[in-house]
């Protein structure tokens, strides 16, 4: 088992779990799959976007290693016990992923908000 005392890189890992307002809003106002499935009588235990999230995580850890798997998972663990502790999986995984990507500057909150408006308009058209 790797001990952070043995690995200077892990020691330098600074996990920033300060809340991002947009993600807090989604957490508060978004309807989780469990509720939607129950309302509409859908028996699939997983939302249709879950596989996409897993694909994003794999792709980010792959080519340019924009978000290494270990760092993402550590941050997901922290966020699962703090900011997103009351969210079910995989909503928690998705929010944590977005959080990690914003904190690493892969895109910013404004860009995400703007893109979400575009996507919402498109999907609800």
């Amino acid at each position, binding site marked *: *088992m*790797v001990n*952070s*005392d043995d690995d200077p890189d892990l020691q330098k890992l600074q*996990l920033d779990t300060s809340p991002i307002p947009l993600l807090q809003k*989604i957490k508060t*106002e*978004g*309807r*989780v*799959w469990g509720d*939607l499935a129950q*309302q*509409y*009588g*859908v028996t699939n235990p997983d*939302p*249709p*976007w879950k*596989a*996409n*999230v*897993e*694909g*994003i995580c*794999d*792709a*980010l*850890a*792959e*080519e*340019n*290693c*924009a978000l*290494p*798997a*270990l760092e993402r*998972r550590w941050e997901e*663990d*922290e966020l*699962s*016990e703090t900011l997103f*502790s009351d969210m079910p999986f995989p*909503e928690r995984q*998705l*929010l944590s*992923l*977005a959080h990690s*990507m914003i904190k690493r500057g*892969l*895109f910013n909150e404004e*860009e*995400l908000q703007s*893109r*979400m408006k*575009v*996507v*919402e308009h498109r*999907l*609800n058209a």
Partner: protein
Amino acid sequence: MSKDKDHDHGAHKAAPMVEEVSMFEILETAVRELAIEKGLFSADDHRRWVEYVHTLGPLPAARLVAKAWLDPEYKKLAIEDGVKASLEVGVDWINDMPTHFGTPSDYCNLRVMADTPTLKHVVVCTLCSCYPRPILGQSPEWYRTPNYRRRLVRWPRQVLAEFGLILPPEVNVRVVDSNQKTRYIVLPVRPEGTEGWTEDQLAEIVTRDCLIGVAMPKPGTTSNVKLPVRKAVNPVEHGHH
């Protein structure tokens, strides 16, 4: 959806669907599109990963165990060379990955851990939840939680008991910790009452939980435990000691 009242369309009714777009669906799409625009990965990369993940499930690992139960030579191979044994159940650890090439998160080494009547293996990844996806599919949520990962190595019998697996004192428990390069599955002891069974019948009782090691195969049990995810009562900080 058809609403023909004159004919019985019960067998052909469309399955219920969620009729609204959630903020989470919008969020996922937005994150993915931004990532592609920023050049973090291509749409094709993403598609390959999603398609790959959809091909994965626990059946190949179950078949590996069933084959090992029926063929002592194959069991020997599985223990000595899990990667080679995997080829016979259709899993190529070296070449099947979407990249077909080593990556920073590559994993090519499968080890098959054979239980005995006095030795029980159970699998974990204490650091982050590494899992033998190519042969076992996606990991269950509980496997990914710090609650499981941190507690199993410290109190294995207690954690196994939460899954309903109570082991007598004469059975040793060996916890194997996965890592970036090496992944594990458990080859449980073949249970009594399966004499004369076919490979298909045997594979059916080798559930995902059995392959992780938190359950033992039993005739008649073909599903996994439905386990509520529990938060750690005294969470351990990341500054491990």
